Structures are given as structure tokens and as C-alpha cells.
């Protein structure tokens, strides 16, 4: 029983770190994978999600509704951002990077000026469950389950719906997709909006666990970008999943022994070594394996 509980505890630790990385990076990786645009305002979109959640929660809205509200609000904001600014930078990767960085500066400083240096915190919903001598937070267990749910939902969105089919077509060959009648402009707007919404949703989910402040987005930037770099842009879902599992395997033991900061440094070193071995990320490697198997099948 005791060793069983220890086993569950270890898995819980890995899963928490994995879910954290996955949720931090999900919105970013959706936008990158489908549109080849790096959104450096990602951390600030998460901040907006947390702000929405905090404001709504303190007006008496139940927490899970707050998270959904954050998804919608930030998603709408993302759509507006895409229409006005981001769409002018398609095909100019570095230009898009720089302009979204400018947006992130405006957003974080703007939040500081409008809302002041911090917003009231949200207590962590749910209690904890005990197993052996360990106790697990119900909230984090839910978040872990949710992140698997989100991946499944994204998978079916891209593989089971017309939107998904058109989006994948636009990603593979935009000119050809347009020629076949796909409205790529609309696809790009919806994709960017979806990515922004996911960032807002993750921000709301992390809101109870961190202090809600204008520059809170920064703490997610490093892990999110490392996850994206390791995952690569070849296949959104395998990339996000593969890289958060792999990086959690690196971060959890090192962070446990040496502390959180060394854990994050280990993430960067792992990322450097991984891109040296597989420059296009894990998703490209997995994709090659799948392609090879399909050829011989």
C-alpha cells in the first residue's frame, strides 16, 4: 500500500509539471503550428485571462464559469488583434515576433496603469484527497484531467471537423487551399483567436496558484517557449504532448532535488541539447516515424 501511494505521488508530481508545461504552451503552439507565427504576447494574454477570472470571481461568478469567460474574452481580444495587426505579418516571422513583443509591453504596462500593481487573489477551489501518507490537491488533479481533455478536444477539432480539415489544408499549402475555396483569412483569424482563448483559459486556471499581477505573464514565458521549441511545429498535438512529457521527465526530478529555479535552468539546457539532436522538434521526429510505418504498412 505504502509503495503504491509513493508511486501515485511520483506520478502526480510528473503529471503536475507536465500539465503546467502543456497548458502554458498550448495557445502558443496552436498559433505557431497553424500559422507559423510566434506570439510573444502569449504571457500577457494569460495575464488577461487571470484578470478576467479574478474580476468575475470576486463578482460572485463560479470558478469554472470564470475560466470559460476568460477563454471567450481573451479569444475575442485575440480575434481583434489578428484583424488589426497580426494579419499584416503573415510570412514575416521575425516581424511578427517583434510586433507581438511591442503588444506585450503595451498590455502589461497598460494593466499596471488601469488595475494597479495587483488584483485580489482567488483561493484554490476544492480540497485535497489523502492516500497513504500523501495528500493530493483536488484542483491540480482536475487541471491534469482537463489538460488531457483539452488535447483530446483539440485532436477531434483538427481531425473530425470541417474547420480542422480546412485548417490543416491551409497549413500545408495555403495557395492551394484558397484555390479550392477555403477562406484562409477566416481560418487564420479563428486559429489566432483559438490560441489566444486557450492562453486566457490557462491563465485563468493558473490564477488561483500564483499572484495576479501585471507582469505575471513573464513567469510562464520561459517554460512555454521551451515547450514549444522542443515540440516543434510539424504537428501541433503530438508536439505539445511529447515535449511536455519529455520536459516534465527532466524538470520534476531536478526541480525536486535542487529547487524550482534549477529545474527551469535544466529545462533550458535540455532544450538546447534536444534541438541539437532534433532541430525541428519532437513532433517532426514522431511524424517521420509515423510516415515510415505508414509507407511499409
Amino acid at each position, binding site marked *: 500500500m505504502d509503495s503504491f501511494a509513493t508511486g501515485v505521488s511520483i506520478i502526480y508530481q510528473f503529471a503536475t509539471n507536465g500539465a503546467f508545461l502543456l497548458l502554458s504552451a498550448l495557445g502558443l503552439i496552436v498559433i*505557431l503550428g497553424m500559422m507559423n507565427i*510566434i506570439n*510573444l504576447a502569449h504571457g500577457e494574454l494569460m495575464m488577461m485571462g487571470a484578470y478576467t477570472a479574478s474580476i468575475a470571481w470576486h463578482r460572485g461568478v463560479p470558478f469554472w464559469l470564470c475560466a470559460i469567460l476568460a477563454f471567450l474574452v481573451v479569444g475575442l481580444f485575440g480575434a481583434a488583434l489578428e484583424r488589426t*495587426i497580426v494579419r*499584416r*505579418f503573415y510570412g*514575416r*516571422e*521575425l*516581424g511578427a*515576433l*517583434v*510586433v507581438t*513583443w*511591442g*503588444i*506585450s*509591453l*503595451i498590455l*502589461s*504596462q*497598460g494593466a*499596471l*496603469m488601469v488595475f494597479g500593481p495587483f488584483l485580489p487573489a482567488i483561493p484554490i477551489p476544492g480540497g485535497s484527497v489523502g492516500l497513504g501518507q500523501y495528500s493530493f490537491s483536488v484542483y491540480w488533479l482536475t487541471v491534469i484531467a482537463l489538460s488531457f481533455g483539452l488535447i483530446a478536444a483539440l485532436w477531434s477539432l483538427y481531425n473530425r471537423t470541417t474547420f480542422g480539415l480546412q485548417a490543416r489544408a491551409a497549413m500545408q499549402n495555403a495557395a492551394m487551399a484558397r484555390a479550392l475555396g477555403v477562406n484562409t483569412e477566416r481560418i487564420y483569424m479563428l486559429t489566432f483567436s483559438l490560441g489566444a482563448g486557450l492562453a486566457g483559459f490557462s491563465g485563468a486556471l493558473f490564477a488561483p496558484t500564483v499572484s495576479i499581477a501585471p*507582469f505575471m505573464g*513573464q513567469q510562464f*514565458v*520561459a517554460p512555454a*517557449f*521551451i515547450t*514549444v*521549441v522542443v515540440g516543434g*511545429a510539424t504537428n501541433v498535438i503530438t508536439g505539445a504532448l511529447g515535449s511536455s512529457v519529455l520536459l516534465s521527465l527532466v524538470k520534476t526530478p531536478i526541480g525536486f532535488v535542487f529547487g524550482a*529555479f534549477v529545474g*527551469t*535552468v535544466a529545462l*533550458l539546457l535540455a*532544450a*538546447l*541539447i534536444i*534541438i*541539437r*539532436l532534433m*532541430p*525541428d522538434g519532437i513532433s517532426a521526429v514522431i511524424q517521420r516515424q509515423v510516415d515510415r510505418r505508414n509507407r511499409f504498412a
Partner: protein
Amino acid sequence: MAALQHLVNLIAGPEDIGRSRWFWAAFAAVCALLFVNPLWLTEFEATNGAYYLLNVPIALGLGLLWGYCGILSFGQVAYFGIAGYIYGIVAGNMVGDATGPIIGSLCGLAVCGLVATIFGYFVFYGRVQNWIVPILTLVLTLLLETFLGQTAGYQWRVGSVQLGGYNGMTGIPAFQLGSYVVMGYGFYYYVLIVVIATYLGLRLLVNSRHGKVMLAIREDAIRTELLGYDIRARQLVVFVLAAVLAGISGLFYVQWGNYITPSQVGLVQASLPVVWVAVGGRESLLAVLLSTCALNWLNYTLSSEGYQYALIIIGALLVAVMLFFPSGIVVTLARDLPRHLRTLRGQRKGEVQ
């Protein structure tokens, strides 16, 4: 003499704006003005003047990297910080020894070069995609800031120097040549000479053979490689050079203010070199030089008025420039203004040349 002529031709080569006789006359006049400036400036004003200039090397390095080689880095301030901190540690431990500041400077630049080489090796020899370099350099910067932020307390003491956590490192010695402590007017001249030498040296570089290969990599990396150039090594060399230039700015900064804090390598500071380079125009060293001085002056003025708006203005400036002047304000003006002037003059004379 022929070698000198060759050198002059290289500096005046085609890879920067400002090639006419008029330009060089103006350039010489401005340099001369800057050199005689201290005649009517107070020592305090001269030190401020040095402050506007001291960020020029880091900006020129980024301009070289981004505009001429096509590699964007958000992490130049990491090297700025590394050089500053290493200088502080080495020179701070050698107080009383006249060679301390020189050895400290060399150590700072060497560590910059070393870190950039290791980092660049993984990035360029891994042949990663274009967007990964800025992301990883940004992550490196963030981690460096986090690390320096938690170095408060006595266990973070190197010799007799405290790293100081978020309060930063204080009491960093000024630069010193022999027994002459470089301060006030002396510091102004020291920065001015290094800045002018850096600018002319980089102009020489971008017009040299190596510079042509660099431009070729920016235009088409695969084609350049098929022509037989080792693009990985070339990119790595430029990356290290840009890091060392950022380190020079870091040295100037700590020698100017005698302190450094982790916020110097924070996200806000990291954005500034990108803004300077983007606003001026990344594909011209001269544009970068001008916009860096102008924006540093602007930032200095703004932050004495009220710092809270400074970031929003900088962010908005960056977005506006990327939207309306994708190749930079100075470069756009330099390209379009002569044409407009010619058209105007042509209309007046009733002919278009």
C-alpha cells in the same frame, strides 16, 4: 598607401546609407563637434552625453546580427549583464591594483564570448529554424535575471564583492588606465572614441568579403551553403561578435554608474535594443547609431517626466514602426527623401532628372 586607400574604399562601401562626399563631410563635422563639446558642457552634462552614447555598441551588434545576418536575438542584454557583473566581480576584488579595471574588462568580454560561443554552438550547429534563436535568447535572459535576483545574502559573495540580489551590485570601480581614473570628461572621450571606432570598424566588416557572405546568408542561407561556405561557423562568429559588443555596452554602463541590478537584464531592458534597431532601420549601421542616441535621449527625458508611460510609448513605437516603417524610419527617410526632393526640384525647374 595603397592599403590605406583600400581601407577607405571598404569603409565607404555600398552596405550602409551615407556614402556621398556630403555625408562624410557631415560625419567629420559631427565627430569634430562631439570632440570639442566638453569646451562648453559641464562635467555633469558630458557624463550624461556619454550615457546616450554608451548603448550604441549593443545596438550596433544587434543591427549587425539582425539586419545584416538575419538572426534576431532578444537576449543581447544577457551579455550586457554578464560583462557588467563579471567586471564588477573582478575589478571589485582588485581594488587598489591599477590593472584591475583592465583585467576586469577583458574578463567580462571573454566570458561574454564564451557564453555566446557555447549557446551559439547548440543553436547554429543544430541548424534550428529562424524563430527559435530569438526565443531561446529570450529564455536565457529571463533565467539570468531570475538567477541574479535570488543572489541576495552573504552566501552569494565572490571574494569581497556582494552580488546583492535585486538590490544589485554597488560600488563597482570606474575604469582606470595606469593611475588615471576615467571619469567625467575623460569618460566621455573614452566612450566617444570606442563608439566611433566600433561604427567604422563594423562598416569595414560589412563591406569586406566576410560581410558579403553574411549578407548572402541573410538573403538565402541554403544557396550560400551550396556555394561552399560554412554558414554555421559564419553565423556563430557574428553572434559572438554581437555578444562582445553588447558586453562593451555593459562595461560602459557599470563604469558609468558604478552599479548594476538584475533588472538590467530583465524583459523591459531586453526589448530596448530591439526597439532602437527597429526604429532606426536594421539594415543600416548608421540608422541604428542615430536612433539609439535619439531614443536614449528620449527615454532619459521621459523617465524623468514619469516612467509609467515610457513603456507604453516604447511598445506603441515598436508596433507603429513595424506596421508603417517596416525597414525603419531613418532608412525609409534616407531612401525616399532624395527622390522626393528631386521630384520637387524637377517640378520647379520644369524637368525631372
